[in-house]
């Protein structure tokens, strides 16, 4: 299983009585592309942070790519995330004062990615994503939103992750760019056989995905015991 959750519950330390997540059982097979939709405040981002190991579950078993995140040390979880999981968000995907190259390099820095072939891989990835060479050395704050999101994908994919987590990555794009973006993302994910977890409130995107789930079906924080 690429993802396996068992009896997972989570509450933020500031409100320990209010459960944000309570998932009895949920799993994703390797190579699956899953679309999760739900209203804002439904715990989407919390779930993604739990899966990437930024947050830790209060109870239960969180397995990602066959490894138990809930049993790892903080340091190992950070390394695991760098090496195996790519993340793309709605915004703030890049360090604005670094150029595209440096942003990608920084991501490679935290993973065990080999430096020898890095430049070549970076070039191929950026070309595939349609980032012109002249735009690669500009601070990313000077790029258009569409370009920024594409550089963000390159940044997320540079370490060859097995799992890509996308949190509303296309919400800041207009209709035209959004479709192009999703198509590009899907083709890359299929090409590299990456498991994709795509979270959005925009149901119109769901036709791109093989599996569509409502978060409210998975997450039942208000269930009675």
């Amino acid at each position, binding site marked *: 299983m690429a993802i396996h959750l068992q009896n997972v519950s989570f509450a933020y330390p500031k409100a320990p009585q209010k459960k944000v997540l309570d998932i009895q059982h949920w799993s994703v097979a390797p190579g699956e592309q899953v679309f999760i939709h739900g209203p804002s405040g439904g715990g989407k981002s919390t779930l993604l942070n739990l899966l990437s190991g930024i947050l830790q579950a209060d109870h239960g078993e969180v397995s990602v790519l066959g490894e138990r995140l809930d049993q790892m040390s903080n340091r190992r979880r*950070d390394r695991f995330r760098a090496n195996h999981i790519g*993340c793309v968000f709605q915004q703030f995907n890049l360090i*604005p*004062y670094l150029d595209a190259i*440096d942003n990608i390099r920084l991501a490679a820095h*935290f993973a065990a990615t080999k430096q020898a072939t890095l430049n070549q891989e970076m070039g191929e990835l950026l070309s595939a994503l349609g980032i012109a060479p002249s735009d690669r050395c500009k601070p990313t704050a000077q790029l258009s939103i569409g370009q920024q999101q594409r550089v963000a994908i390159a*940044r997320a994919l540079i370490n060859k992750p097995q799992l890509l987590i996308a949190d509303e990555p296309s919400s800041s794009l207009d209709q035209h760019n959004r479709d192009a973006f999703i198509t590009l993302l899907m083709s890359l994910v299929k090409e590299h056989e990456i498991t994709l977890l795509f979270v959005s409130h925009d149901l119109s995107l769901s036709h791109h995905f093989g599996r569509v789930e409502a978060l409210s079906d998975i997450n039942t924080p208000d269930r009675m015991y």
Partner: protein
Amino acid sequence: MFMRLACKSLLNRRGSVVLTVLALTVSLVVLLGVEHIRQQARDSFGNTVSGVDLIVGARTGSLNLLLYSVFHMGSPTNNISWDSYQKIASGKHVAWAVPIALGDSYRGYRVMGSTPDYFTHFSYGGKRKLQFTSGKAFAEVLDVVLGSEVAKKLSHKLGDQVVLAHGIASTSFSLHDDKPFNVVGILAPTGTPVDQTVHVSLQGIEAIHIDWQQGVKMPGNTVSTEQLAKMDLQPANITAFMLGLNSKIATFRVQREINNYSREPLTAILPGVALSELWQMMATFEHTLRLISACILVSALLGLSAMLLASIREREHEIQLLRVIGAPPMFLFLLIELEALLISFAAIALGSSLLYMVLVVAGDLLASEFGLHISTNIGSESTAYIMLLMIFSTVIAAAIPSLKAYKNARRK
């Protein structure tokens, strides 16, 4: 990559970073400058006079006597009679005696009347004798030996004629222009007040005042050089004199005898003791200066801390992003510390060069106005110590924002 990220992040916030660097630079220049000048002043102070066992002048405080006889600062309280000098100089413990007569000046530099013995007996900075770069000691009545700085500043060479002025103001209207002196010798630099002194014989001092009464020139009464040579130019008074003794053990006895001299109220001082007394008097001032400069550094470091702390807030997304791509919280702690250290290093580099330039520019002014010879070499143990202290304090001051970044990273 770590370094690159820190540098680019600082460049991205260059406005506030430059101001912080400047604040640290200024505080470092003050701190280093105070320390450097303090040390240099102490060194040049301690080196001003050596090999002289006693300095004798009219009854006054030991510091005052030291100041006017050695540093040529301030005014002598009174003269002492030639007879008393003769009497004491012929005492059985006395190896040598050199009289000093002050009161005239040459374009702002003090004129000191003495005997040729001065050049053989006076020493400075660990018993170094005075050296001539050119010429020799004065022999004739109207011969003059210039200190190195006087010669350099006024670009005088051997054979030049100089006209002394009455009184010690730098601009004097009563000149001894009827009796110009010949430059016969120029001394090597010593880094002491000797460099700023114009040396003439006691007879020379006497000669230029022959036709003067009550500090005013009497008109129509000139004496030719030939006449001068024949005249008895023994002075009736001198300002002070230096004594070298046969045995150091006798120093305190001779000092007591002079202080109890019944014919005239006199004071004898040990130059070494008076020098350290003088320095001690400045100690409070010195400590105050150090304290103030330390406070300036502390406030600059607090400014650095505040600037970084504010930046953490505006960089919340950046911290979050770094966490997502796998940066451990420790990375963020170290990143902020590194940024602080880069600012600190920039301030150290800028501050030392600025101080160096200030010393080069202000060195001449300090030397001519205050007789303070400051070397431009600021590399010393205490400078290194201050820089290390600053780096250490930077790490401490940056710990607050760094911890904040660390905590933010842990929480998310």
